[in-house]
């Protein structure tokens, strides 16, 4: 950041830059404090008139409303504070699922936009323009109404993939049945991952000393995939899918996600992926042509050019805008309040309406979203520092 340096001068105090600055700043600070004090005074008077006490004691009271779905056991008899935690976990769930799928879909869209295939590139462009130029809340309404009203009842559910049923009760998905042996598979997976990290470090150390490359990627993949697979087979491959089945008027088995949850996740993913697609396209196009030409001239194969030369440089320019897209997705998850999915903001809003503690509830809401934003950007900043260009 270029901050212009302060001009030097010497004269009467009211003409002196330094004392003027102090005066100016003192005036601004005083004005801000005066406004805040005035607002605070009004609020105290208004609260006293309405007979609302100020304080966070209400958080311990019984919530008395249902939250569905809840990731941790929850009943309406639990406290408001606990209800907020349940809502926060739902927000984090939506954000995590949304970020993963939006990144994958966005990467695909970005690559399709650059495709030499005219038809594919045009379709991707149409998708991006349509999605980016209409409001997200409108798209959420469309997804929600499609699922809730236009989708058939469970008896006539659309089977979009084997075992995946879409009906007006939500989306029923198969899930793997839990088996005690899974713990050993997981342990083998962790061991394999640790071994591949160690291997990568050793390979880099050796390459820096001797120049000998080592096929790290293939070996690491084998180390990560093979041990869990061997353990899995040794245990007798205890894999069963819990398939949703139509029993009576609804689906039993598997996992059924509510239409609200499905609409929110699909809406957020489809919306954010359009923006991520443009970031990916921009990032790849920002790598100058000379880079890939030089790499080809060095005798690298085409796929190596993309993986070793173009992508690492593209990722570098993509990280900051990607961070803000992830943040946007998390913040946009508050639109759940429009379609009635109980994430943090909807839960807190219900509590606000039940208790009338508007100032306290809004303070909590603001604090949670500000810390989420700050936390996520810190995380991405750490990653950014690792991939950022180190200039001499």
């Amino acid at each position, binding site marked *: 950041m270029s901050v212009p340096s302060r001009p030097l001068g010497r004269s009467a105090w009211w003409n002196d830059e330094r004392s003027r600055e102090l005066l100016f700043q003192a005036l*601004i600070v005083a004005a801000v404090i005066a406004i805040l004090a005035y607002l605070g005074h009004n609020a105290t008077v*208004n609260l006293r008139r309405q007979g609302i006490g100020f304080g966070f004691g209400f958080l311990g009271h019984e919530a008395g409303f249902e939250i569905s779905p809840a990731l941790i056991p929850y009943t309406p008899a639990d406290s408001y504070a606990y209800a907020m935690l349940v809502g926060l976990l739902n927000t984090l769930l939506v954000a995590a699922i949304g970020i993963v799928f939006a990144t994958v879909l966005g990467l695909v869209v970005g690559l399709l936009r650059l495709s*030499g295939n005219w*038809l594919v590139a045009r379709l991707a462009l149409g998708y991006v*323009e349509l999605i980016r*130029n209409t409001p997200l809340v409108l798209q959420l*309404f469309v997804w929600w109404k499609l699922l809730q009203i236009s989708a058939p009842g469970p008896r006539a559910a659309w089977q979009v993939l084997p075992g995946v049923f879409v009906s007006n009760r939500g989306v029923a998905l198969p899930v793997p049945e839990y088996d005690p042996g899974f713990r050993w598979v997981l342990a083998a997976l962790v061991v394999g991952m640790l071994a591949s990290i160690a291997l990568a470090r050793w390979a880099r150390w050796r390459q820096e000393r001797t120049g000998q490359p080592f096929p790290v990627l293939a070996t690491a993949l084998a180390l990560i995939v093979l041990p869990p697979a061997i353990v899995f087979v040794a245990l007798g491959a205890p894999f069963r899918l819990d398939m949703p089945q139509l029993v009576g008027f609804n689906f039993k088995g598997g996992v059924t996600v509510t239409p609200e949850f499905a609409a929110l996740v699909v809406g957020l993913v489809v919306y954010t992926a359009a923006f991520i697609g443009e970031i990916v396209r921009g990032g790849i196009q920002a790598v100058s042509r000379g880079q890939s030409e030089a790499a080809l001239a060095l005798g690298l194969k085409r796929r190596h050019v993309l993986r070793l030369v173009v992508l690492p440089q593209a990722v570098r320019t993509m990280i900051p805008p990607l961070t803000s897209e992830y943040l946007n997705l998390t913040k946009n998850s508050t639109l759940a309040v429009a379609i009635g999915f109980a994430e943090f903001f909807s839960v807190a809003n219900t509590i606000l309406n039940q208790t009338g503690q508007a100032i306290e509830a*809004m303070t909590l809401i603001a604090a949670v*979203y500000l810390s989420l934003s700050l936390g996520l950007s810190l995380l991405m900043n750490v990653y950014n520092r690792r991939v950022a260009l180190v200039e001499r």
Partner: protein
Amino acid sequence: MAETAQAAPARPPSAFRWLRANLFNTPLSSALTLLVLYVLIKVVPPLVDWAIVNASFTAPNEQACAARGGACWAFIAEWYRFILFGRYPHDEQWRPAITVLLLIVSLVASCDRRLWGRPLALLWAAGVIAVIVLMGGGVLGLPWVDTDQWNGLPLALILAVGGLALAFPLAVALALGRQSYMLGIRAFSVAYIEFFRGLPFIIVLFMAAVLFPLFLPPGVSIAKLWRVEVAFILFLAAYLAEAVRGGLQAIPRGQYEAAAALGLGYWRQMRLVILPQALRIAIPPLVGTFIGGFKDTALVIIVGLFDLLQDVAVGTNDPSWRGAYIEGYAFVAAIYFVFCYAMSRYSRSLEARR
């Protein structure tokens, strides 16, 4: 180019060549083309059937449309005035119509470089007053219309365009404040910008709708429209400020030093040398931010204002038109798309010119 004419070598006809080059250039590409064509054949004909072939453009109610099995555009034909202008008195709806035109003209005029500067500022000031008089009435023989009845498209445009006009000066002040060497001012600007950029817009809207009345002196109340407009101004200002800051950072240090060497004070340095250059650079991100702000006007349904989406909800609640929501949403989406697409094309043309 060789001077002597030669017979062109025998080449396949150009349509065939184009197909070869653009749709079947590699095996993977050919496979993709075939896959996409298959999906299109599956999807497009039913869509055309629904939207055009079986659609009803005039029908007494939704049930009659459903009998034909297609889209119910008759709903739009019947309800378009309500969707556009909401509960504004029917006989007075020429006023919001002119307001919409006025705001669009102001936006288009803002794209003309020759007007940038004082003429544009005057135009905007006049435009804001004209819109308030036209919509509200109470003077010049126009009947008074309460802000509760400013609905639909004029509401969206007033929130976004009015928000932009008032947020812009604040944004410039914040961007300069963030660059200031005075710690107090810099800290205030940074805190303001990061606070509003860290919050989802809905929460700012809720603060304006639910919290703000609590902070007013007892007995004073401000119409919800203006409270929401304040939320737009405060929120947009934080994002616009970051766009302006990008422009300020792109100005080389030499410009500041040269302006100071000419003996200009801080404000004249900024007004005459720095800002004219910085704002020009910042226009594409400014337009991008404004598109986002315009799309955010669809959110005011959540705090209970009658925007385009709420008007559609009212229409589809009518027993005769229950179920026509997809048609209503398509209509609203088309309105938003036209505005946003036009603005993003303008922004792109500016970037291409540089």
